[in-house]
């Protein structure tokens, strides 16, 4: 009996739980719900809490996330006002502002279907707005020429206007560029230009260095030449002084000019024969004239003395 009582209690609790699951549903703070009776929307609930419903198939509850949802569109190519191809990707934050309106617009309140619609609106608005602006308004080192925020606002307003016209129960909360870039072929061209930029600097530094070096060397050469020339001039002057000083003893030689003249000639002869010389003498040149005065058994024609 005791065991049956326990079984009944547990069974009753389970039945209550299953009944709650069948007849009661919860709406979280982050959710909004639409209740349909045989397919017809009869209530939309935005406040969190527990609510009663008739079990399926009489009533059905559709719950939606009422928080801001975000998605990113495709990285797509558009033409700017100055005919530059620009790749952009935009992220969007949106939320269901009116579940009762949202629910019938998309099959079963399909969020992916809503995102698809929003994405098509976004791409259309994005293309239109990008076509009105030049590339330099997207990217510019000069802040006053950069219109990044303004372009985002234009796209956002365009999408918001379309949403209001369609009355989809969707509200666009924010929008921003997540990626901007250039197509591959243009990217390669930009790389080539960046390389050329660098080549300018490379040449600048290389030839500036060589020019500077050349200047330094020529200045040094000039300075060296100046120093050497001065030295040579000094040396000439000094040698002149020496010669002048030496000339002072010339009167001594005047005592016997004949001897002085002879000695000078002797000196000149000695100095002139200092180098490797070839001398040709005949038999009359002293002391070789001795060869003619000495009797021999067979007269020699030529004697070469090495």
């Amino acid at each position, binding site marked *: 009996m005791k065991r049956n009582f326990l079984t009944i209690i547990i069974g009753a609790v389970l039945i209550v739980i299953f009944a709650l699951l069948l007849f009661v549903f919860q709406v*979280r703070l982050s959710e909004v719900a639409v209740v349909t009776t045989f397919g017809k929307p009869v209530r939309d609930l935005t406040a969190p809490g527990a609510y009663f419903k008739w079990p399926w198939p009489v009533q059905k509850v559709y719950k939606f996330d009422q928080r801001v949802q975000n998605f990113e569109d495709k990285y797509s190519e558009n033409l700017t006002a100055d005919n530059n191809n620009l790749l952009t990707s935009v992220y969007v934050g949106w939320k269901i502002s009116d579940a009762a309106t949202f629910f019938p617009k998309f099959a079963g309140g399909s969020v992916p279907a809503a995102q698809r619609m929003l994405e098509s609106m976004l791409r259309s608005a994005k293309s239109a707005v990008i076509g009105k602006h030049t590339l330099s308004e997207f*990217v510019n080192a000069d802040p006053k020429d950069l219109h990044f925020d303004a372009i985002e606002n234009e796209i956002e307003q365009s999408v918001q206007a379309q949403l209001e016209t369609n009355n989809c129960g969707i509200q666009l909360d924010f929008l921003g560029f997540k990626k901007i870039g250039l197509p591959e072929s243009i990217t390669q061209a930009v790389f080539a230009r960046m390389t050329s930029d660098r080549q300018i600097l490379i040449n600048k530094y290389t030839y500036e260095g060589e020019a500077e070096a050349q200047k330094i060397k020529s200045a040094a050469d000039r300075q060296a030449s100046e*120093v*050497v020339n*001065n030295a040579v001039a000094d040396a000439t002057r000094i040698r002149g002084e020496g010669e002048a000083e030496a000339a002072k003893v010339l009167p001594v030689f005047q005592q016997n000019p004949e001897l002085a003249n002879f000695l000078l000639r002797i000196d000149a002869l000695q100095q002139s024969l200092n180098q490797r010389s070839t001398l040709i003498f005949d*038999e009359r040149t002293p002391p070789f004239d001795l060869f003619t005065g000495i009797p021999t058994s067979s007269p020699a024609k030529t004697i070469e003395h090495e």
Partner: protein
Amino acid sequence: MERNAAKNGLVNLIAAAMIFVAAFVVTGYARSLAGQLASVLLGLAALVAFVSWFQMRLEENERLEKLEIDELSKTKDGSTLFKAKDSEVFPASRARAQFEKFFVPGFGVLLFLLEAGGAWLLWHWISKSTTVIAPERAMPALALFAIFALLLFLFGRFSVTIARLENHRLLRPGASFILLGAYICFATALGIAGVKAEFPQADYYVAKVLCVLLGLMAAEILITLLLEIYRPRMKGKISRPIYDSRLVGLLGQPESLFTTAAQTIDYQFGFNVSETWFFQLLKRNLLVLLLAQFAVLILSTCVVFVDAGEQAVVERFGKPVAGGVLSPGAHFKLPWPADRVYQYRTEQIQTFDVGYIPDAQTENEKTILWSVAHAKEENFLVGNREAVTIKNEDADTNDTLKAPPVSLITVSIPVQFQINDVMAWAYNNADPTNLLQDLATRAVVHYLAGVDLNSVMSQARLEAAQTLRDQIQSAADTRKLGVKILFVGLQDIHPPVKVAGDYEKVVGAEQTKLATILGARAAAIATNALADALAFTTTNIADATRQRLEVQALARAALFTNQIPAFEAAPSVYRQRAYFQTFAAATANARKYILLVTNTDDVVIFDLEDKIREDLLNLNVPNNSSP
């Protein structure tokens, strides 16, 4: 009574075969995926019913044969007839034994192949199939499958009841299959009803479930075949046919769970385990135990443990409980589904990366170079002040070379954050982590679009990290994310890998410039020093010359003064002596030719040209121009 078993088997076979054909036709008509599966399972039911009926016939023949032999043995006891071999005397018995020994295992293998192959093929076919049930054909198909379910249920229940009688065990496989077929037809009808009620996937899901069931049946028969090898065989013990699926029996008769379990255990262990007190206790109190377990499960949801570094939000019927943010530790709450808890990592520092995806292969490298990709890097557009206009200085006009005011740059920016308001994090945005990454990426794109490439890589780099941090924090606050940006690191910022080498060459050129200038300075120093030395040398040589001239002049004067008396004493001898002394000394190293002329008409020719040494003439000079 015995004859009724075979008749019932035949009825089962005819019913299963007819309903199989009918279900196949209806499935083709309605294009129901679940109907395809139901047809296959009904086909298997017909096959099993046929084999079990055939085996019943063999047993029946054996029984009749035994009766005839018994009758004959009473009248002709001791005749030679009964001394013959068993195979000759009991052909029906032998046929039955051969059937059970060879055909039944073979049929088990065939059944496994059909079930496993069917499950595999149908699963893939269903996954790729785009077939949908035509709405106008749904109702007739629904009605017909419901009728099939009813008919099969009636046949199945009747046969299952009959199968419990003695010697009717072979009715059970077909009966169980037929009863399962009834439930499958009912499930198929439900799937079609779901499609009719605008749940187009209902038929698909029922088909998937039936595929899984077919796969489980295949697995079960495979296990049975393997166990059959090791099954202890006892003489006189009647074995259960391999094709008699316990799973099918259980699904067809859920109440027989315990019976099946007991039979299985008894069969495998070889003694009556099901008769033990524990098994009986379990059988009597199973419902209570299951309920108690469920109750414990519900009670266990009254306690929640929040890990270190986390916070949890408690919702009661979907509404956050006042002050319901739980800190780490154990907490009590109302049981599920009244209270629900959602946990978040609040204390933990979370990180994501902007501009690159870390690459496991290059992550462990010790050196990071601009010219080598160290992650999957993304190129960002960046302003380029220098390239906007370049004046063409060579031209007379004011033409300028216009270039797009953009360059490309690669950045690696890790962002670290912490959740500081768990309620804002949980309830304001559906995917806050992804949104924060979007906001951070946008901040980086925006920042780089408005700065100069060279500036951001050099002097603006320090302030860039702080600016980005402020901008990301501001964007997160505006979107009410409830996070605190702890760190934004501009850990790597450089030109894309493809042009990074050229940037390095610029630095190289700058260094080369300095080197060239320094080299010139060194050369200038050498030149000036050598010039100074040369000047010094020249001056000193001149000084020495002057000194030599002066000294020699004085010495010569002194010498001359002393030579005068000698000369005056013997002018001719002195002169000769001086001449010959000087001559001998001066011509000592000279080459001398002395002509002793005897015939003045002779012409003597001297070749005084310097001779080049012979070894130099014989030197072979290599010819570089030759190939």
